[in-house]
């Protein structure tokens, strides 16, 4: 296992607000790391900061290392050369992410031409191959089609084709299936996995959908209010969620076979805004099991199982109780 992307102490600040604080994260080559959390947890901000697509008012600090090379200190010119070739991103809204007045083929050719000098004919041939790669039937005919004639799923496929056109090492997918319906969602995620394996990319999947995470991710990072709270392989994490926030997320995720006419879908009381200015654990104001210490001290990181890390005072407390019981 080689770490493809390593974030060390990534912090994103806006005037009067810290969107991401001290995030450490790794994405391995050929594997999928999922960033999970509710709206406002800083997961999209993390993705955008990697691409340097944040508004000008944002201040980003920390080390970003891609493929052994620190990219956070590159100047904008040098960084731009990496975009598309080393890292690329897929956005949430396939309906508006394509240029409406340019044909599908031209848009893929554009992406190819940024980094490689290709003849018109060669670029068109590559564009057709890429459309075939993302399973668009009749690829040649679609080259001359405009985005508005495509369905959302097809447009997302085109976006993926454009993103992988220059074979990036890292692909960031920011809620790639949120705007699509469930059957298309599975197809797109399968396509992403297939391309990840084929092109040996690392995939950073930003999502709020726990079902997606459980099925498609190799590693999960749970974020809340800009902080990482828990991380681990999805099997371990979902079998034995240790952080009360992860448990809350899982409880509030609808599952098949449950009728919500009789019982209300559980929710985590309170709002994420309560984390603003909170000392100690950011989740303390909403935590059902909050301890006095949570409001004063930042919980230390613990590793209760191999590869499973969590930052929560409850663990300490449980261990102390166990120790007392044992005498």
């Amino acid at each position, binding site marked *: 296992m080689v770490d493809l992307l390593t974030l060390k102490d990534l912090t994103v600040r806006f005037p009067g607000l810290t969107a991401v604080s001290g995030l450490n994260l790794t994405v391995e080559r050929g594997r999928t790391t999922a960033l999970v959390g509710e709206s406002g947890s800083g997961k999209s901000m993390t993705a955008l900061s990697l691409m340097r697509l944040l508004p000008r008012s944002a201040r980003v600090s920390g080390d970003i290392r891609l493929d052994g090379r620190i990219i956070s200190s590159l100047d904008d010119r040098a960084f731009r050369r990496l975009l598309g070739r080393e890292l690329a991103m897929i956005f949430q809204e396939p309906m508006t992410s394509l240029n409406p007045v340019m044909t599908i083929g031209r848009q893929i050719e554009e992406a190819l031409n940024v980094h490689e000098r290709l003849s018109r004919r060669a670029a068109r041939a590559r564009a057709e191959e890429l459309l075939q790669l993302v399973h668009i039937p009749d690829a040649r005919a679609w080259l*001359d089609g405009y985005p508005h004639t495509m369905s959302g799923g097809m447009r997302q496929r085109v976006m993926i084709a454009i993103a992988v056109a220059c074979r990036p090492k890292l692909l960031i997918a920011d809620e790639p299936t949120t705007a699509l319906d469930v059957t298309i969602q599975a197809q797109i995620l399968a396509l992403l996995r297939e391309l990840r394996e084929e092109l040996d990319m690392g995939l950073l999947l930003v999502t709020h959908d726990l079902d997606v995470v459980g099925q498609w991710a190799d590693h999960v990072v749970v974020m809340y209010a800009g902080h990482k709270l828990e991380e681990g392989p999805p099997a371990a994490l979902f079998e034995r969620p240790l952080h009360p926030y992860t448990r809350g997320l899982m409880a509030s995720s609808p599952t098949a076979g449950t009728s919500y006419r009789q019982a209300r879908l559980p929710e985590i009381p309170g709002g994420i805004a309560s984390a603003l200015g909170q000392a100690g654990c950011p989740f303390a104001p909403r935590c059902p099991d909050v301890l006095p210490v949570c409001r004063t001290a930042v919980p230390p990181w613990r590793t209760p199982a191999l590869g499973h890390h969590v930052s929560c005072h409850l663990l300490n407390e449980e261990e102390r109780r166990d120790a007392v019981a044992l005498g």
Partner: protein
Amino acid sequence: MARSLAASSGPLDTASGQAANAMPPADRWRSLRLFAANPSAWFGMIFLLAVFAGAALAPVIYPGDPLSMVGRPLLWPGENPAFPLGTDGLGRDVAAELLHGARQSLFVGIIGTALGAVVGVVVGAAAGTFGGWVDTILVRILEVFQTLPNFVLLVVLVAIAGPQLWSITLALGIVTWPPLARITRAEFRAQRNKEFVLAAVGLGYGKTRIIFREILPNALPAIVVTASIMLAMAILMESALSFMGLGDPNTVSWGSMIGDGRQFLRTNWNLTAIPGVAIALTVLAFNLIGDALNDALNPRYVRRG
């Protein structure tokens, strides 16, 4: 990766299912076809081509100065076969004047609007893309021009520089650029925060590439339509200048023909009507072409009926 992109795609097709089975619209020449299917575009094109041809061939058909007196004054069209459109108050050939006048009107109108369009689009694109203090300064300059009444500004500029071909053209450019800059700025502001622009930035496209290849084509319909209106306006303004006697006195133009014919309006109305109709039809032709271009360049446009 060892395998080529093409080789690896085939057998995997079933793995993730086929994409939706919408019909691909294979049509590389869609814009051209739409334009050609529009009857008003045809009228505009044919009329303008005729005007251009007449203007280009004027020295061949009517060699010599169109302002020289060649016959009896105030002949009606058809009275003398040598002068198919008759003669004016000084005995000049109206047909010769009309063809030579087309040169002046079209040249001044087209070059003046082109100047205005280039300046307007560059200023508008810069203001709309960069925003901030660049935008503030450019918009303040724009406002200075927009508070001055167009025609008064034109008259003053021509009066200062002297009525010559180049000064009239330049003055028309100065008058036409502010509306184009405004439209371009508004379009760029609307487009620059769209997701496809963000996606383009995320692919490492440079600024110029994003401005000219991503945003400008989206802003083009509005710019083309405005430009065609400005072109019609430029021709009208040149005519108005000439009518007022502020045109180049050594060349004939449609506006000066109307101005000269004014005194015979009650008896020989044909002297004002002929160049008047020429101006009206030319302006109409430009507007029709602008309209048809707007439809043809819009990928969502579907012809009804």
